[in-house]
């Protein structure tokens, strides 16, 4: 993120507007054409903005794909980004789903190294988070959990108490509630 709000000091006047950063979740329906991902990522990259999460998969409509992108920045810049995404010829639409009118989900795999004595505790934790163990070896146990991103963050934090060897998360997917369009 370029426009961090904590960089200014008492002596140096801030160069950019001191707007607090917000996170936005954008749902896109795009043509499944070569280069579409590059065009989309350039809208962010030309500002030196970082895409925090990006999920691409087939859509139910032939020759099109779904994307969910998460990014943080000042609201006016994010609004501009969404307008510029919509301007791309291969983007059928890009909607902001940051409000509560959307379901977001993410799946994570967590590989924890633990002793036989610790296993019970790890498995109990997994159960509380409605996850499940998908692989087990003498040294490690691999868990799968699904939920919103905050839930996976919380699980990660708790698993850090053990020897969390690897974590792979799918990134956030979004779907609008009810009859609203994603």
């Amino acid at each position: 993120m370029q426009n961090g709000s904590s960089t200014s000091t008492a002596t140096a006047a801030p160069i950019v507007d001191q707007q607090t950063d917000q996170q936005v979740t954008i749902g896109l329906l795009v043509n499944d054409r070569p280069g579409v991902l590059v065009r989309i990522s350039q809208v962010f990259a030309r500002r030196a903005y970082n895409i925090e999460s990006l999920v691409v998969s087939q859509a139910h409509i032939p020759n099109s794909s779904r994307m969910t992108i998460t990014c943080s920045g000042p609201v006016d810049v994010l609004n501009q980004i969404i307008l510029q995404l919509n301007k791309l010829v291969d983007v059928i639409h890009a909607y902001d789903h940051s409000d509560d009118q959307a379901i977001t989900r993410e799946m994570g795999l967590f590989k924890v190294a633990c002793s036989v004595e610790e296993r019970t505790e790890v498995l109990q934790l997994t159960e509380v988070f409605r996850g499940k163990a998908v692989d087990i070896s003498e040294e490690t146990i691999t868990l799968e959990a699904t939920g919103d991103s905050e839930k996976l963050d919380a699980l990660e934090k708790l698993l850090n108490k053990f020897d969390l060897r690897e974590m792979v998360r799918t990134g956030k997917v979004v779907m609008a509630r009810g009859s609203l369009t994603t």
Partner: protein
Amino acid sequence: MRGADKVIEALERQGVEYVFGHPGGAAMPIFDALVDSKKLKFVLTRHEQGATHMADGYARATGKPGVVLVTSGPGATNTITGLLTAQMDSSPLIVLTGQTITSMLGKDAFQEADIFGISMPVVKHSYLVRDPNDIPRVMMEAFHIATTGRLGPVLVDLPKDVTQGHPLPECTTDFPEKVYLPGYHLHPKPDPQCLEEAAKLLMASRRPVLYLGGGCIAAGGHQVAHAFAEKTRMPVTNTLLGKGSFPEQHDLSVGMLGMHGTAYANRTVEHCDLIMSVGGRWDDRITGKLSEFCPNAKKIHIDIDPAEHGKIVMPDVFIEGDARQVMEELINLVGPIDTEEWLAQIDAWKKKYPLKYGKKGGLKMQAVFDRLYELTNGDAVVTTDVGQHQMWAAQFYKTKHHRQWLSSGGAGTMGFGFPAAIGAQFGRPDNLVVAIAGDGGFQMTLCELSTAVLNKLPIKILVMDNKYLGMVRQWQNLFFDNRLSGVDLEGNPDFVKLAEAYGAKGLRLRRNADIDKILTQALEYNDGPCLIHAECEKEDNVFPMIPANAPLSEMIIEPPKHKLAAPTGST
């Protein structure tokens, strides 16, 4: 049919007259197919950048898309500056690039460049064709995208095996009846509620100003803009790219605004209570310091591109739509606005701050453009490079015709003017075309003298030689204690001899007293291009000037007597 033949057929179907370009290995099948075309004329340029500016000049002068054909690798990368220039100023280009064969893509083949990837940030859209049967669809889409909505350049990368018909199959598909682009939304009809709101704001204003940009010209909105200004009695200002959207000689015109605009245009904008942009984009050359730009004025923004909404300035009303169509509807909702007092104030500013220049000393660029304007009756198609000469030309060559002024605005591309004039002359053979170039810019694309001479184009080329990269020198002079760095063009050639070496007519202009004589001689010359080497005063500065990111109120009208703080804005 070979893919290459289908490419040529597509160009013919679109009514293309000229293809500007340069050949090479990967484009050879297309060049071969070109031999059989009876409708297309190929213009061989001496550099691919020149080809893109020619196509751009042709597009801006005629309103039709300009077409470029080059080869792969360096041929393709040489088009990047031209693509940026077209993209920034919303000019419709079709750039066809040859490419290595599909089986070699990504393997560093000879003259392979990932032009599809390299060009992405500077095109409206682009294609890399892998299947010969896609050619008809892609070519139709390319033209559709380049010439509708907000105009812009489209690149089509054509691997050699896709165009030559082997080992890949030939193209057996036909042109689709219409394009299907589910992600490409053309502007809707103007929203009636927005129109009503805009009309209400307009009628409530007392100090309105109409601000016309390049979008007004792209939309062919010049006639309705004229009618609109006269009906409402609104003063009109235009951007650099908006020159020609409204006659600058008209009583209601205050000419160009912005960094080097007229003082009275900037005063008008500074004191207005409403500003309505038609096809403008509140560029940083225009607004100066954004937080102090018309803070109390109502703002109406008419633009074909919804992504312009709030990009720089958040307007009170945004109307998405074609500039011409919106004004044609809006004009029915407005009447005369009581601007008598306002126009009187503007007249006073016009009298107080006229555009002027010193008459003493060496040859003045301002005087050359002033006289060029008079001697051509303001009717010439004028192209420029970027820099001091561009700003003085914009100030002193007042425009009155749509598509008369071709200048690289957004990109500020040195070397644009001369090749753009070649393209414009091809597109408008019956018009007088004058290229105004700086000594710096001209040397970036002067190899196209061959192109102009071979095609016997009666272009007038004014090379404004002050032996400096003048605008940068001006900034170093005003803001950097005159510590000159990298701006000295000592060693410029004798441009008269240079013109003669290419077989063009060359004339020399050294004194203010000779301006009329030399210009007349050039204007009367009709046997191919005529170049005037104008040896100008070396150290003149352009005023008025609003330093980058300063508020309009801090406009410098006269040469300052004390040192100025370095500007904080972008360039």
